[in-house]
């Protein structure tokens, strides 16, 4: 119950967020303070549609039609990923932490979940169909991967009052992580035998609860740089460069570390191990899992955070142009994440209201269509609502994920 309350409290209190809607560059913050509350949530896949994913989220039977539909779209790399970040950021122009009046103080707290995975086509086939239709074939599981990490960040830093560029150093509290990767791995099924080759490694932190398990400690650096310039025509442009999660977590020495490198053949029980044998004969005791040769030990593990790199052209509020182009690039340093490219337009019919739409490709998913809506109240309050995956939000068959972003800013 406590966990539920904590989770709900976080979700409700941070029911908006800033990593990111299509960010809109506003103005300098040379006086007073700005507080941003953001919620950034998506899951996405380039192969597994919402028909399938919804069954895991909401329950229900995964029918043969659903499985077949997914099978048609499987690729060499079948990614599934997710991020959920609930954050609160504060910028205060009245505090000059490094003594230079050009820079203000910024602090932040965020709770982050990150999932990154790649399921080989044959592993998907094995999980959802079994091996009965693959007798005589080899099912290749190589390079399948799963990473899940849950952590919190508390950061302090400085920001440039004119450009809102910022640099934060964060203490990272690791809550839990599970990670595993297969290298050369396969299963060959014959009519009278199964050969299973497994090579891989991974680890799992010891505790699955409480929500803030604090099983690891680390640090990270977040850099957010806005480069302001004018075109030959005198139009002011903003290029945003962002590097986040440049850091690591050291998990405690209760972490379970796994490795496996075995070729196991299974031909069923030899009847001779059972007939004319005493009741407690060792040959009568067989555990297939034990024969796989999974090595396990306890120890500490250091893992890097999912480093993010993004560069984008931001729209500027109160520009004399109602239509502004937006475009950008983002990468997360994990093997399952493809370079993420997007482009679109930002439209501001009034000073207090704007919207944007964009097409994107990459990341954990494929082609996506996004929409954002922004509303300002007397330059003091900002509320934004958006999604990077409108198709996913409305279609089970053609959607490959979902995305909801909320953000609210308060100037004091």
């Amino acid at each position, binding site marked *: 119950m406590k966990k539920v309350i904590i*989770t709900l409290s976080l979700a409700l209190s941070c029911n908006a967020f800033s990593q990111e809607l299509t960010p809109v560059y506003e103005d300098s913050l040379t006086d007073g303070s700005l507080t941003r509350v953001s919620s950034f*949530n998506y*899951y996405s896949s380039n192969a597994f549609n919402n028909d399938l994913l919804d*069954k*895991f*989220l*909401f*329950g*229900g*039977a*995964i*029918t*043969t039609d659903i*499985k077949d539909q997914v099978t048609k779209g499987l690729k060499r790399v079948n990614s599934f990923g*997710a991020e*959920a970040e609930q954050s609160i950021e504060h910028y205060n122009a009245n505090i000059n932490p490094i003594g230079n009046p050009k820079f203000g103080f910024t602090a932040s707290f965020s709770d982050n*979940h990150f*999932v990154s*995975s790649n399921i080989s086509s044959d592993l998907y086939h094995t*999980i*959802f*169909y*079994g*091996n*009965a*239709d*693959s*007798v005589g074939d080899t099912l290749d599981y190589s390079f399948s991967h*799963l990473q*899940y990490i*849950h952590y919190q960040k508390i950061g302090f830093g400085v920001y440039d009052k004119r450009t809102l560029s910022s640099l934060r150093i964060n203490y990272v509290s690791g809550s839990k992580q*599970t990670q*595993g990767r297969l290298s050369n791995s396969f299963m060959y*099924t014959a*009519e*009278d*035998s*199964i050969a299973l080759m497994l090579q891989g490694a991974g680890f*799992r932190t010891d505790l*699955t609860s409480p929500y803030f398990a604090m099983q690891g400690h680390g640090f990270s650096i977040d850099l957010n740089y806005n480069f302001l310039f004018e075109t030959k025509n005198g139009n002011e442009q903003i290029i945003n460069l962002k590097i986040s999660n440049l850091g690591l977590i050291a998990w405690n020495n209760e972490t*379970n570390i*796994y490795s496996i490198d075995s070729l196991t053949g*299974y*031909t*069923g*029980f*030899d*009847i*001779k191990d059972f*007939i*004319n044998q005493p009741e407690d004969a060792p040959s009568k005791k067989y555990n297939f*899992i034990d024969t796989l040769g*999974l090595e*396990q030990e306890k120890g500490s593990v250091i893992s890097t955070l999912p480093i993010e790199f993004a560069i984008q052209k931001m729209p500027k509020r109160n520009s004399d142009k109602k239509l502004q182009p937006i475009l950008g690039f983002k990468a997360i340093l994990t093997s399952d994440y493809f370079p993420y490219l997007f482009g679109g337009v930002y439209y501001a019919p009034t000073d207090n209201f704007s919207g944007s739409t964009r097409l994107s490709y990459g990341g954990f998913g494929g082609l996506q269509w996004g929409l954002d809506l922004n509303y300002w109240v007397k330059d003091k309050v900002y509320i934004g609502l958006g999604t990077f995956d409108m198709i996913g939000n409305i279609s089970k068959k053609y959607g490959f994920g979902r995305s909801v972003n909320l953000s609210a800013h308060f100037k004091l």
Partner: protein
Amino acid sequence: MRKKLFISIIAASVVFVSCKKEATSWSTNWAAPIAHGHLTINDMVEEDHVETNSEGYLSLVIHEPVFEFSLDTLIKLPDTSVVEKTAIGIPSLDISPTYIQPTTYDQVLNLGEIELKEVIIASGFIETKLTSVWPGKAKVALVIPEAIGPLGSFGGVYYFEAGHITETEDSQITDMTDYNMNLTGGDGLSVNTIGINVIVQSNEETETYTITSSDTNTVGFSFIDMVPKYARGYFGQYTFSDTTTVSLSQLNRVVAGSIDIDSIDMKITVKNGFNLVAQSEISLFEGTNTRTGTTVDLSFPDKNTTMNIDPASGGLYDYVPSEYPLEINSINSNITDFIENLPNSAKVGYKMDINPFGNISAGNDEFFPNSKMELFLDGEFPLSFGANELTIEDTIDINWVDTGEITPEEANVTLNYSNGFPIGAQATFYLLDASNNVIDSIVGNSGIITGSFNADTFETIPHDGEISFPISVTTFENLEKMKRLILNVSFTTDGTDNIKISPETFFDFNLHSNLQISVSL
């Protein structure tokens, strides 16, 4: 820990899920081997019980005792407590430090008809307990000179303080293992008699004290769990006779069909490991098949004949049992009819006389260490037979294992085999509920086809075949309800003549499944 890992992975996969209205489920089909084997007759019968006979095919052979008894329950030294009282025969007597009163007496053991002269003890104890009421210090030496152990004769010295008011007591327990006890008494002519020497004397250094005729001291000893490993004497005249019914429970599993046997050759040897004369007689040996209601009375030459069983020869450490063989075979008896009746119950009437002529050994019957009277069976059962739908049924108690998130739905279990036995079989599995009602059955699409037997070479050309056992959703549901499983297998040999099992006979098989299971998370 692996389960936790699995749970963690699944949890990570559905990290955004707060609650689900129903479980996520899907069906999969799995091909997996279940079992395999290469079976020969040696895998079914212990290797020591199979040999190739002179004609080149296999025989089942038995060389083992089937019945035995010992005499150690007859020849035993019962737990006995004896107290001997001693007192002077005059009104009073002054006891000086040099006073010595030696006493010798025989203690007779009550052993009924048994008259023992000598025993060697395998295990047991003698507890001695002596008391003195003499008013001065006393010393008593108790010796059984003809009970000789590893350290000499049994005995000990017991010391008493002055006990004029309160008697003083001294006791000891002696392990009698390996003691050789002569039971012929002080004169060497008695039986069941222990000769005992007791010497009572003052233990004062200087003082003299006076005892009276009422100062009665006691010498007592008790036999505790005394078991002999050797005995000599006359063991008495005994007759054991009984008619007993023996259940042949293995044959209870035969529920139908018949068997045809060519020949059987048996020798039952009566072995006498005792040095005494015995007589025995088998008056009844009949087998009943309660399923068919048929009883066959086994007849053989020595039936209803008194057999004189000679004494064993040799001595304590080199005795050789005497043997009296009974030949029973297909020629001199109806043993094949007896076996073909497939009796699940046998009634045996017998009589045995120990020392039927009395004490003709002059009291020199001997019971040797580990000696026994036994019936030893040497049998050869050639594997030459015919079976016609010989049906064997066995019931197995089942505890169904909860499969958790994995639910079997349908399966097709396939048996690929190469049958080198000249015997075919049809198997059916019956599922029983808690009330023993048959709720379902699993039956293959065909039976195991017999190999082709060549009567000239005794060789069998293997038959390669495949059998499918389909298991439906309903059957899986019934498997979960099942409390017992009946395995019903019907055997029929190849052709109409009897077959013979050659040493090369084998049965190769590979059992694999195609199993549809539902995964529910």
